[in-house]
């Protein structure tokens, strides 16, 4: 572990699709400095991108006046990423995607973001905003996973 531990990096994005790539790049840089292997960095990049897209598209409804905050916090053995939006938070988690239902037109072809986030990181938590506090999704990847 190097000097990045116990430090936080913050990024603020406009609610515009495409800007999630800035968050992906920043998360990848921090994870690389922490010593995560390339495959885990790819997992993190996809999870962070999907969390940002949800924040931009669904929570902030593509409103350019609203921003998405990303806070990356590194510890000895984990990287936590909070993606903070201005929406009301996730009410219900969608069911896992069912490819057979999608192929037969029984469920929409989209709606895979939250499933991918949960599948690709070690911990994922959606927190609804309360008075004065914004909603966010919190993602964690750990260095001590087998194979790291």
């Amino acid at each position: 572990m190097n000097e990045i531990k116990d430090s936080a990096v913050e990024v603020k994005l406009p609610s515009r699709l495409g800007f999630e790539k800035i968050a992906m790049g920043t998360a990848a840089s921090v994870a690389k400095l922490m010593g995560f292997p390339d495959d885990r960095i790819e997992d993190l990049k996809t999870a962070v991108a999907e969390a940002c897209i949800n924040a931009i598209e669904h929570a902030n409804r593509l409103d350019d006046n609203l921003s998405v905050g990303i806070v990356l916090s590194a510890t000895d053995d984990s990287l936590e990423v909070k993606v903070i939006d201005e929406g009301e938070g996730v009410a219900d988690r969608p069911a896992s995607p069912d490819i057979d239902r999608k192929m037969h037109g029984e469920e929409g072809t989209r709606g895979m973001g939250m499933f991918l986030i949960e599948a690709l990181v070690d911990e994922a938590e959606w927190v609804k905003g309360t008075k004065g506090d914004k909603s966010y999704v919190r993602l964690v990847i750990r260095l001590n996973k087998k194979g790291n």
Partner: protein
Amino acid sequence: METGTKTNVDEITAGSGKSVSVLRFSGDISSTSRDTVLGAYGKIAKDRPVLLDFCRVDYINSSGIALVIQMMMEANKTGQEICAFGLTPHFQKVFTMVGITKYARLYPDENSAKATV
């Protein structure tokens, strides 16, 4: 911020002697790629297999994956064989996670795809 999607179609002959369409993508594949991706797929002959080439794709998100599923749905309606190649190991894993491999085979490169269809 997004790199636009570009498409190109090649007609090739596979190892089996069949004519095959190769739909080559480059740039990003996301929600803004819808017209480009589905428009290019719509122009392809449906009486032959199609290979989707992701070798020059920089970024795919879940909206981009949804477009791949839409192409698979169209192929399924006409019985067209659809395969993909050139995905990174990460996106091979993601495509498998969401179930795409149940309906479309993935190959590491064009030669292995051509040899099998």
